[in-house]
């Protein structure tokens, strides 16, 4: 896939406030790319600089090889789905969708056909005559999508498009958006603060903190091999344990981990800064497992004693907090409620299996 958008050393200041700090980014053609981060991290600002609503204070943005400096939003090959959807309240659904076609030079019948197709594509066939203000949140979002996609932009920018929807609608729209993106083949750039949403939808994700990119990777790498403690904390749940490198043999490391004792990990499980300074070990809840009656650890797993501290029952899953000797903070772990497994009570003594291959060693 070829590079469609490239940002080099993009800076943005609002007065004294440094909103974007030297962003380098390459987004490929046809990719579903997400900008993920907590509020105030600069992700929306970055999206708006790509759209052209904000100028940059330094650096360059190139789309399809062209420098975008000084190019206003109406002349950029990008279209945006706004967080508020920005549906024109004085126009009907069809008029909203046709808004950007005025300069297209299409005949009236071609325009009408394009509008019908666009509305059918987003599942709003037959809604054209409705007044825009009479739509539900999900329908407004579909209109916003149709209105942007009808112009066949090179890039579709989505600014927290699902945050205003309820959970069920959001999950449905996530799947629809992925399908839609595959169908039209347009590059999507999604801004979201919802890590689950980013993991579900994206080909690649850039995690941003304080105007900088903390890590850029595909969802699996991001989840399994976070580059820093901050990324690990932001994406999903993670247990952290104090650790010390006893022996660095290059290809593998011997660690002394609080509560777990000595263990050997591959070099690929450790970040560069962890090998030179203070470090912690990260363990995802689902890589830990309670050993119920009659269950034995699998090959490669280690076992420690633990006491149940808290139980949270979710139906399909049960989340446990367990205490292990020598560690003050309880470990979080999650168990699938498969047939035959009891839900343990608080205070029960049990055994917990863990796997050295699931550890990540992070700078702390």
């Amino acid at each position, binding site marked *: 896939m070829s590079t469609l958008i490239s940002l080099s050393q993009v800076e943005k200041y609002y007065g004294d406030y440094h909103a974007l700090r030297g962003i380098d980014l390459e987004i490929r053609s046809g990719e579903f790319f997400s900008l993920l981060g907590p509020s105030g991290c600069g992700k929306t600002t970055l999206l708006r600089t790509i759209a052209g609503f904000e100028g940059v204070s330094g650096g360059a943005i190139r789309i399809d090889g062209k420098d975008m400096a000084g190019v*206003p*939003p109406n002349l950029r090959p*990008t279209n*945006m789905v706004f967080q508020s959807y*920005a549906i024109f309240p004085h126009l009907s659904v069809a008029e909203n969708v046709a*808004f950007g076609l005025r300069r297209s030079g299409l005949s009236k019948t071609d325009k009408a056909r394009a509008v019908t197709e666009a509305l059918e594509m987003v599942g709003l066939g037959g809604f054209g005559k409705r007044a825009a203000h009479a739509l539900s949140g999900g329908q407004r979002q579909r209109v916003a999508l149709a209105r942007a996609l009808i112009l066949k932009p090179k890039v579709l920018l989505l600014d927290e498009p699902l945050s205003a929807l309820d959970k069920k609608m959001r999950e449905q729209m996530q799947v629809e958006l992925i399908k839609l993106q595959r169908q039209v083949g347009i590059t999507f750039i999604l801004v979201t603060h919802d890590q689950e949403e980013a993991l579900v939808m994206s080909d690649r994700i850039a995690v941003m903190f304080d105007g900088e990119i903390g890590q850029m990777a595909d969802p699996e790498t991001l989840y399994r091999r976070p580059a820093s403690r901050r990324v690990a904390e932001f994406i999903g749940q993670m247990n952290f344990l104090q650790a010390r490198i006893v022996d660095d043999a290059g290809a593998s490391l011997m660690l002394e981990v609080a509560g777990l004792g000595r263990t050997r990990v591959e070099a690929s499980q450790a970040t560069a800064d962890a090998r030179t300074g203070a470090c912690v070990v990260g363990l995802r809840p689902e890589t830990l497992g309670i050993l119920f009656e009659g269950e034995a650890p699998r090959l490669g797993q280690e076992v420690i004693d633990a006491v149940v501290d808290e139980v949270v029952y979710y139906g399909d899953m049960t989340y446990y907090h367990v205490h292990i000797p020598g560690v003050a903070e309880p470990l979080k772990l999650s168990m699938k409620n498969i047939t035959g497994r009891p839900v343990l009570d608080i205070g029960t003594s049990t055994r917990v299996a863990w796997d050295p291959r699931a550890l990540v060693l992070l700078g702390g």
Partner: protein
Amino acid sequence: MYALAFLAVPIIAVILFSFWTQDFMTLDRTFTLDNYREIAEKPIYTVLLQRSIYVSACVTLVTVILAYPIAYFVSFHVEPGRKSLWLFLITIPFWTSYLIRVFLWKVVLGYNGVVNSGLLGLGLIDEPLSFILYNVNAVIITLAHAFAPFAILPIFVALEKIDRSLLEASQDLGETRFTTFLRVTLPLSMPGLVAAVLIVFIPTIGDYVTPELMGGAGGKLIANMIQVQFRELNNAPLGAALALMAMVSVTAISLVFIFLNRRWLRRQG
């Protein structure tokens, strides 16, 4: 109840009066259309009504055209914390009485007024400009100034209510700032504009102080004639008939305006 007492009763009284006649000192209460016949037959009344409508239309046009940019500026280019200060400054003319403001305009526009002596002093003109005092133009200038805040405020409120992301969406969809104004800002601010037009147009028809003081011989309007009928000529029935004519004309023009506006908005799609 109050609406009935203060609005309906006077209007009914005016309607009743317009069908009676004045017989020197007494009121003849037999039903007659004589007043309306007189209005239709003597051209003076029609001329005055037409002139009134013309003046009001001019005042409305001037006021709204001047008010829109001010409202737009305050809404879009003044930082949020300063907006109330700006609105406060706009209402400052209200601190002085309407009458004093009219007299001040006499000072500004008069033969020896600020404008004329200024231009004379600069050598730009040889003799005082006469088209700005004691005629229709002077009335229009004075009324437009007096009603400006009434026009600015509703337009400002309408502009404030526009979601700014709509303007960005329009630009994102290919429109320039100017075409965005035509396709989004203007249609969405139309309720405020209509309110401003009606708020200025309706009361200016009935205004008689300004034409009395600023209008001179050729600048008298229908309201002056109504006043003359009621007071100097002691002919309340004819005055009432004139007032009713003026009211009906204003209502008709306003309705036509609203209708045309609706149709224009619908065609904007």
